[in-house]
């Protein structure tokens, strides 16, 4: 396949499918951290070891075929342009750490981008599966299958007591991180989110912004994931998260209903003002763009806006990140130039559905 597609399309093909509860849950992700017995972990391994590990996986995936995901493409970090790496980060296909700090890092991507394997990040491999909407179980199933397939050929570092051995003690055991991206404008507008976040934290789950640790919840998008990886089975971890997400979906739906009931015209006004900003502005920062996109998406979900597809929020959120903007501009852009580009890109995209 043409690997340039990975860097050009903002929406991974899997995102175009409408998953369950997709009015609130944008995507579901499962990540498994695995290491090999015979090599030192990436924190201390030698360059030779790192190169061997990449070769091992390159060989495995070129010789054998996993399931029906089609061939995987191997991309080596030291052979990619900075902007291209950034684009992969913005699409959540690789982590910022792999893009920035891992000289011998690489990733294997499936054609539809629903599966990616990071090599030589913090652990030897991190298997990641992404699904549209609320499909954690399906994502776990695929990740497990890919994991089993790899295990037929690779000796994992596994301990009877501690399970899968990972570089960081926070991942030991299952090595599993399950997470969902949720669009929660209703809970933010009704100011319930501030109370909900601490409650979720108490359940051993973490709430973060879109781009992981320390990032702000741009566009009312929150990432919710498990913290504990040891002492619970994979299924239980996913079940526990699923339970909390179900509740959040309920709460968000209730908040939206209440908003429509009590302040319908104000809400409609807000949605159309944001739509106006997006379709008319000439300079727009990422924060404002994200907020307006969130409003428009809410407007689509509530039926105020009917001419724009739902995927607009995810697509434009990704498309207007610095990496993608620069990719489209064909080179580096200064912050001010980015804001101009962002505005024109959003206008062009929205014009399509006028």
């Amino acid at each position: 396949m043409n690997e340039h597609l990975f860097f050009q399309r903002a929406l991974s093909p899997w995102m175009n499918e409408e998953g369950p509860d997709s009015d609130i849950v944008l995507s579901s992700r499962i990540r498994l951290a695995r290491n090999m017995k015979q090599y030192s972990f990436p924190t201390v391994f030698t360059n030779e070891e790192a190169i061997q590990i990449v070769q091992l996986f390159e060989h495995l995936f070129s010789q054998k075929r996993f399931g029906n995901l089609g061939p995987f493409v191997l991309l080596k970090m030291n052979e990619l342009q900075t902007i291209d790496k950034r684009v992969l980060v913005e699409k959540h296909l690789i982590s910022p750490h792999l893009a920035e700090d891992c000289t011998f890092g690489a990733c294997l991507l499936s054609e539809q981008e629903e599966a990616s394997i990071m090599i030589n990040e913090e652990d030897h491999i991190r298997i990641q599966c992404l699904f549209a909407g609320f499909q954690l179980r399906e994502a776990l199933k695929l990740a497990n299958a890919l994991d089993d397939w790899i295990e037929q050929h690779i000796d994992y570092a596994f301990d009877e007591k501690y399970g899968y051995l990972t570089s960081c003690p926070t991942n030991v055991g299952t090595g599993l991180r399950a997470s969902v991206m949720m669009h929660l404008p209703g809970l933010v507008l009704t100011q319930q989110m501030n109370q909900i976040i601490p409650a979720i934290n108490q359940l051993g789950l973490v709430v973060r912004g879109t781009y992981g640790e320390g990032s702000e919840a741009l566009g009312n998008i929150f990432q919710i994931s498990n913290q504990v990886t040891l002492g619970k089975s994979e299924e239980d971890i996913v079940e526990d998260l699923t339970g909390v997400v179900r509740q959040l979906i309920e709460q968000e739906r209730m908040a939206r209903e209440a908003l429509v009931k009590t302040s319908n015209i104000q809400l409609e006004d807000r949605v159309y003002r944001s739509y106006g900003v997006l379709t008319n502005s000439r300079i727009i920062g990422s924060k404002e763009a994200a907020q307006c996109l969130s409003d428009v998406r809410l407007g689509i979900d509530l039926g105020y806006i009917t001419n724009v597809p739902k995927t607009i929020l995810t697509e434009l959120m990704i498309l207007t990140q610095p990496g993608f903007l620069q990719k489209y501009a064909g080179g580096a852009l200064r912050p001010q130039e980015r804001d101009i580009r962002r505005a024109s890109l959003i206008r062009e995209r929205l014009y399509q559905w006028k």
Partner: protein
Amino acid sequence: MICQECNQRPATLHFTKIVNGEKTEIHLCEQCAHEKGEMFMFPHQGAFSINNLIAGLLNMDASLKEPKAPSFHNEHILQCERCKMTYAQFVKVGRFGCASCYETFRSYLPPIFRKLHGGHVAHEGKIPKRVGGTLYVRKQIGQLKQMLQELIAKEQFEKAAEVRDQIRELEAKLNTEGGASLHE
């Protein structure tokens, strides 16, 4: 808005810091943000990360143990034979060097894991089919036995008999495998 650091360029990066519940807003241009190490896109750089937290946690344990340490004069050079990582280094970086480190530092791990994983210290999840060896089969037998009990309770005896046969088959497999590895 003008960058509050250089007071020249426009501020394009806006941070909200919450320290002990106190909220401060910072507005910077990209250059100044870079210099201050607060690049927005890649927050792990320079920012306080989970790393620091873990290292802090491990350190705390080490300092608790220190006063008792002198009697074990070799404790301060507890080192992984394979990757040469010392316990002191492990505490500092908050990362294991290799699979053998888990063996070397084994006696120190339960309190650390307990804190990180809500009181849990042992793996309950998946077992790799090949590397997990007999453990995988033993766990399968455990699950089947549970299923057997449930079927008997529901008086589904035909299905229960099938499950019983499966258990026998696995146990036989376990015995021959265990026997084979003894002779190696």
